[in-house]
């Protein structure tokens, strides 16, 4: 099946069976390897991307379910997103493998709750496993990024707008 997906603001043509999980299209077809494979059943959050601003598990999202929704991946954050900067300031990553997913979940949280409480962080981030146990630094980095506020007039603005604009229930903490 040939479909065109909106990935990080670019229309992207892909050739894959309709039931193929978005994760494998991103990684194998498009070579966008920042999004990670961890469990394949929405248990660990390593594959988290945004669909119209909502954090979703791409390992269980078939491309036929994506339609025209805007997909944002870790590559779409640009590398200097305030959340990414906070991650670096706190030396959050250890092995680093889960961090793309952690950061995507954190960005979605901050877009909806610019000053999250500990409970908000627990609720939003409990679906993302870190086996290295970087949890207390993840918590600190989210609070730090919140204190720095949203980015001003840069290339990330449209992504964050998309996140803020999104509404409805999320699957944060999915798989618990």
């Amino acid at each position, binding site marked *: 099946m040939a479909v065109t997906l909106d990935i990080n603001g670019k229309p992207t043509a892909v050739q894959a069976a309709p039931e193929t999980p978005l994760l494998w299209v991103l990684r194998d077809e498009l070579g966008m390897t920042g999004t*990670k494979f961890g469990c394949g059943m929405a248990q660990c959050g390593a594959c988290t991307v945004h669909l119209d601003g909502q954090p979703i598990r791409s390992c269980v999202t078939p491309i036929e379910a994506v339609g025209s929704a805007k997909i944002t991946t870790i590559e779409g954050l640009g590398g200097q997103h305030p959340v990414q900067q906070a991650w*670096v300031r706190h030396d959050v990553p250890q092995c680093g493998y889960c961090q793309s997913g952690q950061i995507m979940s954190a960005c979605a949280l901050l877009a909806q709750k610019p000053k999250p409480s500990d409970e908000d962080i*627990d609720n939003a981030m*409990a679906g993302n496993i870190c*086996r290295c146990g970087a949890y207390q630094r993840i918590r600190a980095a989210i609070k730090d990024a919140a204190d720095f506020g949203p980015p001003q007039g840069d290339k990330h603005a449209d992504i964050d707008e998309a996140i803020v604009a999104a509404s409805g229930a999320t699957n944060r903490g999915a798989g618990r």
Partner: protein
Amino acid sequence: MNAPVNPKDLAQAQPSRRDVVVASALVGGTLLVGCSPADIMSAGSKVEVGAFGPFIKIAPDGAVTVISKHIEFGQGNHAGLAAIVAEELDADWSKVQVEQAPANAKLYANGTLGAQLTGGSSAISNSWDQLRKAGAGARAMFVQAAANRWNVAVGEITVKDSVLTHTSGKTAGFGELLADAAKVPPPADVRLKDPKTFTLIGTDRVRRKDAQIKSDGTARYTQDVRLPDMLTAVVAHGPRFGAKVKSLDATEAKKVPGVVDVFEIPTGVAVVAQTTYAARMGREALKLEWDEDKAEKRGSAAIAQLFKDVAAGKNTETKWDAFDQRGDATALASAKGDRVFETTYEFPYLAHATMEPMNCVAAVDGSKVKLTFGSQGQTLDQLAAAKIVGCLPGSVEIETLFAGGSFGRRANFQSDYVAECVHIAKKIGKGRPVKLVWTREDDMRAGYFRPLTIHAVKVQLDKDGYPAAWRHRIVSQSIMKGSPMGGKGPDQTAIEGTAGSPYLKATPIVDAQVALPDVGVPVLWWRSVGATHTAFAMEHTIDQLAAKAGKDPIEYRRALYTKAGADRHLAALNLAVEKASAPTVGWTRGVAVHESFGSVVAQVAEVKLEDGVPRVGRVVTAIDCGVAVSPDQIAAQMEGGTCYGLSAALFGEVTLTDGQVDQSNFDRYRVLRINEAPMVETNIVPSGNPPSGVGEPGTPVIGPAVANALFSLNKTATTRLPFVRSEA
């Protein structure tokens, strides 16, 4: 990962005589006879060492690259290793980069383990002298080059941030002096800095060099390797350990679009395809029958019962090895009464469950092998690959990438998943790269678990309430048996932590023995290895003994440490207790202290029960790890190690039903999540000793600290882990 190992055992260990014979036969003679293991492992390897030695490269702009012989999979060792070089070299830390060394045991062997292998929490400790000398040597070459150019005495030159300055005010950077410095003969003897003058080591300036690339998705893991013409493979494994393929019908699998080939390998059936998804779909279409005549068919409950029977002396065929015997303990066997304590602890199998499931990329062209993956034991992996393709181990090229965690799993004598990938790439041949991908289910069911272990403890107290006689029986599976690192005497990985315990040192009569029955479930070291159970058995026992004696558990420990001369234990305990100060209202405290990998960790954990489930809040930690090279990374390892240990203590349990692993993913193998994570405060005991381990020692202490808090809270001892058992 592993225990400190006797270097002599290791020297004998790798490669085995048979491997040498195989290797020499391949080159058509006796060429290799008489060579050292490192020579053999390096033969055929091409590594160009630059002017500043195998650990330092300096670019024309003066930027310093430190070459790490150790893999980075979270421990933060790359930061510490680079800082050691930068300190002695007086390099500009902000421009220092880290590069992974190629596989070459002669240049890059772990000084503690004898092979190129990252483990035993030894990356910093075994590199300490080596990298200080490397940095100081390169510095001396630059100073000599500047002295020659300026025609001044070397004593009149100082170095700071990669810039050399003469007392006259003349300056030159590493870049300007590079060509001259490279021609200066490396000094035979170098003077190292007085640690009191360190300006980088021990400061919070030592930060990770990989935080950015691990926050923007560009860090490269095995899973991310994409090479021209690369294929992806998955393997269908048998349902039980030891199962063999009986019959294979690949007709339907081969019809799946994208599937390239299906064939048998020693560990199962490989499905090779254009993409990961196609390979997985192909595997689902296989029709397979398994021969399970020789498979392990016992469940974990039966294995646990066997081990308990062995511990209770009901199984007379078992061979026991004594590892600490002093005085006559015969009277203790039948001792009864108020002063006698007796209990049995049960610890389950544990999966490492790294975030990145096991995987490897291999290309085989005749006798040429290239591996691209997160190799933890390059020497072991070279040996495994060489055996399969029939070449010199040293000629197996390895590009070591980041790995998404290991916790011991990737250092494996069988190189299990690496061998699997090499078998597949050999069949594909022509140098075509093949990426072997294990799913989470493959990973969790592949074994190499922390062994199921039983401790049976009996202690008689003296009239003052301190241990007078201590009988200890450990029943576990051997990790080292049959391995090239086996060595003589009892398997240290099963007893470390009980063996060497200050509590046993403080006891006049001791009878400690270990039995290691054979079981068909593959086992392996798991972050902190023996300490994962010995720390619990010793530390939880101590609180129960203190209660029996009517003493405060902290004071009880202090008395025993004083008796045993365990000054470092005492100092770590005192620091943790002092920093913990007053308890938080509504929380109950538990204390535990344990030494592993040369470091002592003490923790004061605050615990409460929420709906019957232990919740851990503040954990005040003190560690004595010698000189603290990178304090922030030590803190990160205490935080992470505590989470890893707490995850296992709360939830970790692999069970088997009739030999089949019951868990396959994070739905049934529950792990710690952010809402369950403690807040760890790290305090470092000041020390002038050489650095000791950090990656593992933070893991084993939290379990007993929580058990001790619960014991204090409700007077119930914990005799079986995990605390929270699933419905399985």
